[in-house]
């Protein structure tokens, strides 16, 4: 279980809580999280997937881009899960593809949250003209369908994995910004913040040391879910032929094999299943975190 | 006089998470005669609202009636099927709640919400229903009812909303009106108006009222009888004049002294701390067989500690009290 506890423990340090983890809010949240069955199931599933993509290549030494046999070889032949339309090993694709897919998801989610935090916190903290301008910008990005916008960006700037990651991050930050803004506005008027302000705390201190730690729980939940969304986006882009052809990913496998679904269902079903399980695991973790952090929702469930 | 409502040895429990039954109301018995008012008095957490909801058949899911009978016009309503119970609610007996703001649905006009009662209980619709709603709004003294009928709850003041609630409760011509802290959420001046309105409507319609309140001072004029509830148990009951003039239970005396202080303009430090009565109502599950008021009672004696709470014992005509030290207190 030690590996499973790692992500939650980083939260402790991130919000600058005292080391007494049994009584700290993060410690309480963690114990609450471990009580929620869906959260634990999700965490186990996610750990399994991550371990599989990390350890898998050492156990199953097949290059995912190599042509290992005839095209459309069904599972249970030489290749365990069959070969795709070019004769590449599907299982190797799943193992290596998971790395790219999960990495794109994580980095894109980081970009999303970084932009969302920046815009939302400035907007919610300063209010006034700053808020009006930033809200307008957010509103503008909201009317562009995120996936479509990402498609346009990738089409224009090329299907490299890095471009794809940045494009996904750049189009899906609006909800994180709205959430952060709402949290900052709510917190701004609370007594302990007013007290800090009255005690002469600088804006910088207030934002980073007072408001941010308190807004973070909600943002962490939204960041978790953003990883899932980013993975789905990567899949969608690859499906439309915008995946990076030089890097194996689950989305790319789906996109390249979808026209041959009637000849080789295994090359389409398995990568789709992998995306499904990864996103499911992530949203279960998100749910568990949400229940642990938000007492109002906890009561409901 | 034949009682309209008779509650006989009612016991209500809450099902805890562990599945244990925790008593909320214990052996409660009382009766209300037609056109009379009974006031149920006590602090928050004494089981007043739960009594009201038990009467209406609207207890929350984790609350159960473990024993006892509730007779309305001689009919045991606890044995009624759900459909018949529903037919009684809103017609034979109706209820008004503490918070007129949240008790009204914000998305429908007041006319619509009053009209519903007419439609489902009296089969009135269209113009006839509207006419009747206007009459009801007039009866509860809402100015310009022709305009208010199409207003939404958020457009009305708190007092006005409570008048709407009362109109809604009267729409089914109830024989029993349960008023659960009807004035708590309102300004003091409006409180008096609402009490006056209730008294007047009772004279006009002959409905019986079960008034639930924590304010013993306010009920003196309106109520014919008073029942003081503490931790789910009746500790003193009787004619209202007798209880206000000569309270016997230390808790009742404390409640009355709070009122006196309030009237002198000395607010208590907080509502849980009644000033004259230190401490709080014991929480559910922390109530033993002994007198529930023991921990807060200034007059507590050894007899109180070594014996279970005494049964309600008559001490004068129409006045009963449950206290080991009633003689000492009276002195």
């Amino acid at each position, binding site marked *: 279980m030690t590996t499973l506890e790692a992500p939650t423990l980083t939260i402790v340090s991130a919000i600058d809580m005292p080391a007494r983890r049994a009584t700290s809010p993060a410690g309480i949240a963690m114990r609450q999280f471990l009580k929620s069955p*869906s959260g634990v199931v999700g965490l186990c599933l996610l750990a399994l997937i991550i371990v599989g993509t990390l350890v898998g290549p050492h156990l199953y030494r097949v290059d995912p881009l190599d042509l290992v046999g005839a095209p459309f070889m069904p599972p249970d032949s030489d290749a365990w899960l069959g070969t795709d339309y070019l004769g590449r090993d599907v299982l190797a694709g799943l193992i290596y593809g998971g790395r790219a897919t999960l990495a794109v998801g994580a980095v894109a989610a980081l970009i999303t949250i970084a932009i969302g935090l920046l815009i939302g916190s400035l907007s919610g903290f300063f209010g006034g003209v700053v808020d009006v301008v930033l809200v307008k910008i957010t*509103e*503008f990005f*909201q*009317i*562009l*369908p*995120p*996936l*479509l916008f990402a*498609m*346009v960006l990738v*089409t*224009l*700037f090329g299907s490299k994995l890095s471009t794809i990651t940045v494009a996904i991050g750049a189009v899906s930050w609006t909800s994180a910004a709205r959430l952060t803004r709402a949290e900052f506005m709510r917190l701004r008027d609370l007594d302990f913040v007013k007290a800090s302000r009255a005690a002469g705390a600088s804006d910088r201190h207030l934002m980073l040391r007072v408001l941010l730690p308190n807004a973070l729980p909600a943002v962490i939940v939204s960041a978790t879910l953003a990883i*899932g969304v980013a993975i*789905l986006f990567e*899949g*969608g882009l690859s*499906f*439309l*032929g915008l995946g990076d052809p030089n890097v194996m990913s689950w989305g790319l496998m*789906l996109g390249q094999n*979808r026209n041959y*679904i*009637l000849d080789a269902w295994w090359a*389409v079903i398995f990568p*789709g299943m992998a*995306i*499904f399980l990864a*996103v*499911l695991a992530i*949203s*279960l973790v998100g749910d568990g975190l949400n229940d642990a952090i938000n007492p109002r929702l906890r009561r*409901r469930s | 006089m034949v009682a309209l409502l008779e509650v006989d040895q009612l016991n209500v429990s809450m099902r805890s998470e562990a599945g244990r039954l925790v008593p909320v109301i214990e052996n409660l018995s009382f009766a209300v005669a037609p056109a009379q008012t009974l006031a149920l008095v006590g602090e928050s957490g004494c089981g007043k609202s739960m009594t009201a909801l038990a009467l*209406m058949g*609207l207890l929350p899911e984790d609350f159960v009636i473990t024993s006892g009978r509730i007779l309305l016009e001689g009919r045991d309503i606890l044995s009624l099927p759900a459909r018949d119970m*529903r*037919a009684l*609610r*809103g017609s034979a007996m*109706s209820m008004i*709640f503490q*918070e007129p703001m*949240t*008790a*009204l*649905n*914000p*998305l*429908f*006009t007041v006319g619509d919400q009053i009209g*519903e009662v007419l439609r*489902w*209980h009296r089969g009135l619709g269209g113009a006839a229903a509207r006419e009747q709603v206007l009459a009801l709004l007039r009866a509860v003294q809402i100015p310009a009812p022709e305009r208010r009928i199409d207003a*939404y709850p*958020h*457009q009305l003041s708190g007092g006005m909303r409570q008048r709407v*609630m009362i109109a809604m409760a009267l729409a*089914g011509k109830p024989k029993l009106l349960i008023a659960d802290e009807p004035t708590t959420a309102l300004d003091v001046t409006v409180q008096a108006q609402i009490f006056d309105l209730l008294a007047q409507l009772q004279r006009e319609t002959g409905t019986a009222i079960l008034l639930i309140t924590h304010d013993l001072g306010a009920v003196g004029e309106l109520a014919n009888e008073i029942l003081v509830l503490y931790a789910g148990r009746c500790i003193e009951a009787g004619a209202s004049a007798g209880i206000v003039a000569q309270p016997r239970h230390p808790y009742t005396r404390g409640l009355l002294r709070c009122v006196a202080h309030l009237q002198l303009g000395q607010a208590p430090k907080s509502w849980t701390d009644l000033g004259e009565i230190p401490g709080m109502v014991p929480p559910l599950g922390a109530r033993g067989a002994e007198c529930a008021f023991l921990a807060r009672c200034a007059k507590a004696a050894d007899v109180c500690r070594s014996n279970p709470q005494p049964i309600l014992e008559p001490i004068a005509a129409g006045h009963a009290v449950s206290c080991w030290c009633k003689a000492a207190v009276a002195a």
Partner: protein
Amino acid sequence: MALAIHLTRQIANAAALLLAVLVLNFCLIHLAPGDPVQVIAGEMGGASADVIAALRTKYGLDHSLMEQLAIYLRNVVTGDFGYSYYFNEPVLGLVLQRLPATLYLTSCALVSALVVGTFLGVVSARRPNGLFSHTVTVFSLAGYAAPIFWTGLMLLLLFGSVWPILPVVGMSDVVHRKQGLNYVLDVAQHLLLPSLTLALVFIAQYSRLARVNMIDALSADYVRTARAKGLPEWVVIGKHALRNTLIPTVTVAGHQFGNLFAGAVLVETVFSWPGMGRLVFDSILRRDYPTLMAVLFFSALMVMAANFLTDIVYRLIDPRIRMGQR
């Protein structure tokens, strides 16, 4: 009067946002690697030197950026969104021709998602810990996590090969053309799988949302009042609780129209549905930038129309907003 001011403000806001989308499009063309004229002509290599020269003149590519922007905006205002060299047609006509099919698909999916999702949520809220409620929760999690194009492919596999009872390609039967009512039925049949695929994701989300809000509403004071009035249970749920439950769903549905549209792009690609999504796929494949840009513009327009509609529905449901109290 307040409504008139509100409307004016909304329209002005919408116009500003659309202008911003056009400016964004313009910037993207110039930011993209390569010569803008190649971007405009599409990277198919089919454009001759004459065409290139004509394009340079038309878009004023020899002038300053600001002048080029002005020319671009003037063209758009006169309905000229450029020319698609792949489809050999003006882009505007191309988009408008594909718009109805996408609107059928999205509206059909949206309506069924709202109805089914709310129904599932409301029923499961009646017994939050019952079997049905848990089933809905699991379904909703799965529906959210399943990639929409993958769900589509699975349905395609199921109904196209394993159990071929439904059409899986296109919008109507092109071999046996139907007339009148038969044509409508034919289209409805073709619409079934794509709209089901698209709706599933949103059914998952709305059922979850409706469940939580229904549970909240059922513990609200006004529901207790409705019960105390002796109303039948279906009136308590279907009128008093449901209306309050719908408010958050409407908000979310309105905000998600962009996702609905993006989902349609994927679904249309799977089922060869001849809408804007299919157009997007083709123009991505052919690097047909003018078409892609026009679709981005029109999708933004559709999102704003959806927001506008949401605003109206919201006002119809909630009098507090209608009267400017909130």
